């Protein structure tokens, strides 16, 4: 391993840290929202800190069960064959996503939209 390699690794790690902390800094706030997109359209927008359940109807009449509880959003059931979306862990931070490709469903956390 040469010096150049070490510099490269350090630069990459520094870039990762910069983006990580920058992102957190820009997204401070406590009233985040769980936003569900089906395809490109916004399907639902719910507060993260209120417990709620929603049966999402996605592409091709596929369904995903969204559960918001204790400040986390999770997909607990789905009609898709692979159920990758169900295995993805619950999300709670702005930017995190749960994706169901077959149903074209994206569940993500966003900063509260100022009405």
């Amino acid at each position: 391993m040469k010096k150049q390699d070490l510099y490269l690794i350090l630069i990459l790690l520094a870039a990762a840290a910069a983006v990580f902390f920058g992102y957190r800094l820009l997204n401070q706030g406590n009233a985040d929202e769980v936003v569900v997109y089906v395809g490109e359209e916004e399907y639902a927008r719910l507060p993260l800190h209120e417990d709620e359940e929603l049966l999402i109807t996605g592409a091709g009449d596929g369904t995903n069960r969204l559960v918001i509880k204790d400040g986390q959003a999770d997909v607990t059931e789905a009609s898709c064959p692979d159920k990758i979306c169900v295995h993805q862990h619950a999300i709670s931070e702005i930017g995190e996503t749960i994706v169901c490709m077959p149903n074209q469903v994206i569940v993500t956390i966003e900063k509260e939209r100022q009405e």
Partner: protein
Amino acid sequence: MSKKVATWGMLVALAFLLSYIETLIPFSFGVPGIKLGLANLVTVIALYGLGEKQAFAVSLVRIVLAGFTFGNLSVMLYSLAGGVLSYLCMVLFKRFTGLSMVGISVIGGVAHNLGQLLLAAFVLKTESLLYYFPALLVAGTAAGLVIGLLGGMVITRIRPYMEQNIS
């Protein structure tokens, strides 16, 4: 001729095996289709042991083969996106910078993940995936580092035999 076929076949088989091992390791982010990129080890070995064109050929064959066998079309597309960007970056940096195999491998690992992330962002039409950029950077760097070190050990031992077989 048959030695050439055997060597290439062995490399593809090795990459194929690494792709399979990847499927055994749970690695789920908020985005489906993202993988570790272990098979990059073979790309790096082919790049340093045989050459640029050969590395590309071995990678392409492996991606298509593994895609059909272990995944579906979507997995293969992500593999392709990651593999192509990874290969391009590795070749460019190898030609124009003084990085050693370790550095090139790190570039390959990071580019692999970046390619997949870019494809996901394009397919899902969202920029929110930027959230995963730091994690993928770190994972790509770590994977690249390990592969670079392993690759170095492998190349010093088998390069003479590879050249023998191909020429």
